[in-house]
């Protein structure tokens, strides 16, 4: 639109007839179509979220006993899970791994992110730190995994061997920025400095004040960050793949299954992952509602 060329000063303008027609159109949409404004988001959600889930679920049911096209039992979900390949055991093992990784890395990321958020808000170099923290979010996850592996693994400092610890470390790296970005709006919206000063005039040391007053006030941001990081960790494949070694997480297992052409098993595991995430999210919500 010509008229918004530079923060409201008119440097370029459309011909009057066009701009009048545009205005009339804008007003029409704004007035008449308000009824539909609630529909559109719902439709978007339906298309992008619900439909894929339904499709996957549908396939699992179709392929349950046997491949519906060939009739071969080996092409059925049950066979692949409980037959010779015994994918079911792998699924259970992977679940354990995923949970441990997600919980540990998110918890550790929280412990790192909260002090970091405070530093970012209170020090002159805070903005700089915040910018750097965005890097893990930008670079491809596989590169992230590779860099972690090279630094901490056998070819580098050799402090951490491949496996679950490396996965956890990698997940911490991309969870911290997510946490920090969730905490900062909560911090800025809460007048934290004023409440802290208030607590200190009442006799609290700086640390006491943070613990008893500031932290409860940013609770919302922490919870949001926790959920975001947790779910991301559950579903992450890019970096996990590179660092995992023999410990496998559920999403990585799905990839493995697909490569081994055990598609029904992969479909089942995907559905399983969705169900697992929902259950865990539900639990987190119940805990934090208190």
């Amino acid at each position, binding site marked *: 639109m010509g008229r918004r060329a530079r923060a409201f000063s008119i440097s370029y303008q459309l011909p009057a007839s066009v701009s009048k027609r545009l205005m009339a159109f804008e007003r029409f949409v704004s007035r008449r179509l308000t009824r539909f404004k609630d529909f559109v988001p719902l439709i978007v959600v339906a298309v992008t979220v619900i439909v894929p889930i339904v499709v996957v679920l549908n396939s699992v049911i179709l392929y349950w006993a046997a491949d519906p096209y060939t009739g071969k039992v080996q092409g059925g979900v049950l066979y692949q899970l409980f037959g010779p390949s015994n994918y079911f055991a792998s699924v259970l093992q992977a679940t354990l791994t995923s949970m441990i990784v997600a919980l540990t890395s998110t918890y550790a990321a929280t412990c790192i992110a909260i002090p970091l958020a405070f530093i970012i808000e209170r020090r002159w170099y805070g903005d700089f730190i915040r910018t750097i923290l965005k890097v893990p979010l930008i670079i491809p996850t596989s590169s992230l995994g590779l860099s972690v592996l090279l630094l901490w693994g056998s070819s580098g400092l050799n402090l951490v061997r491949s496996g679950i610890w490396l996965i956890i470390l990698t997940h911490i790296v991309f969870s911290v920025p997510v946490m920090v970005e969730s905490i900062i709006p909560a911090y800025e919206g809460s007048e934290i400095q004023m*409440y802290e000063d208030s607590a200190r005039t009442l006799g609290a040391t700086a640390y006491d004040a943070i613990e008893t007053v500031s932290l409860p006030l940013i609770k919302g941001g922490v919870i949001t960050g926790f959920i975001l990081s947790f779910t991301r960790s559950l579903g992450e494949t890019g970096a996990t793949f590179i660092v995992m070694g023999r410990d496998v997480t559920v999403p990585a297992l799905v990839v493995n299954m697909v490569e081994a052409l055990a598609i029904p098993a992969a479909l089942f595991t995907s559905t399983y992952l969705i169900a697992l995430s929902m259950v865990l999210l539900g639990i987190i919500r119940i805990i934090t509602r208190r």
Partner: protein
Amino acid sequence: MPEVKLVNVTKRYGRIVANDDINLTIKDGEYVSVIGPSGCGKTTLIKNIAGIIRPDQGEIYIDGELVNDLPIEDRGIGYVFQNIALFPHMTVWGNITYGPRVRGWSPEETRPLAIEMLEMIKLSARSDAYPSELSGGTQQKTAVARALISRAELLLLDEPLGALDIKVRGRLRYELRRLVKDLRLTALHVTHDQEEAMSISDRVIVMKSGRIVEAGKPIDLYTRPNNIFTANFVGEANFLKGVVTQISDEGCLVEVADGLQLVTDSRNETVGDLVAIAFRPEFASIGDNEMSNKITGNVVDVIYSGSIARLKVELVNGDLIVVKKVLGFSRTGFGVGDSITVNISPRNILVYPYPKEGLYNELALD
């Protein structure tokens, strides 16, 4: 022993000098208010004393002890914030008992004190309420109780009534003073409302642009302000530019317009001085009587406000003055265009050297 003493305290924010070489002593048990326009540095002053910020220069003594390096929590003060700052995630009880809890006092010690505080502010029945459920006035009282429970002897109030309705402010301010006096505390109360300060303080300090302009008892600041800014900021005042034409033992004569000379009892001037004279609207009496200082003019506006009318009078040289009149059963009896004569006795005329930047700039509150 003076309770609070500031020596040459200066605080800068970039190029702005918020506190400029402040020297101040507040005596034990005094209720002192600091007033001034926005940006005059009064909040910076109180934050310096609290320890929330540190002065760039100068020393602050509380009860004889140098506190510059003492952290906030060790200064033994109670602080009430402008936006009340009750912890939203705690109940009234939680807020009030916060201080003792965080200082490690036992519940047995804290309980009776909290109950006493709640009694004093008449909130015993609502100790389980959250701040968001309370009215503004109640929140404010809770904040004060919270500040006082740890037996702090110095109470610092930063626009404590700012968030409240005018009517509630008018009531609560007397309760504040009563509380402070009953508990024998020393109080420093920052406000932009000069009426509030005048009605409850032992002493009032007027600040402008980082400096203390004047300090004194409310009635003295009102009747005999030493500084022209105080004359304008405290109460209402009319200002007229003039030249001193005669001096004598009893005072001086100031010519403010052609043919209009005012007799004053000010003895600090010399003939030829350029001055600004000030008098309060309430001291101008309407009518023609034998006293000296008769001013005539035309009424150009009448503004009613409850039981008082303010008459805007235009003098012969175009200057405007305001005269206040208490309304009787009728209206003032004056309408726009009417001619009016007022009298002011010499002792009610204040004389100041004419400000270098002109009256408008000197008195600007903006």
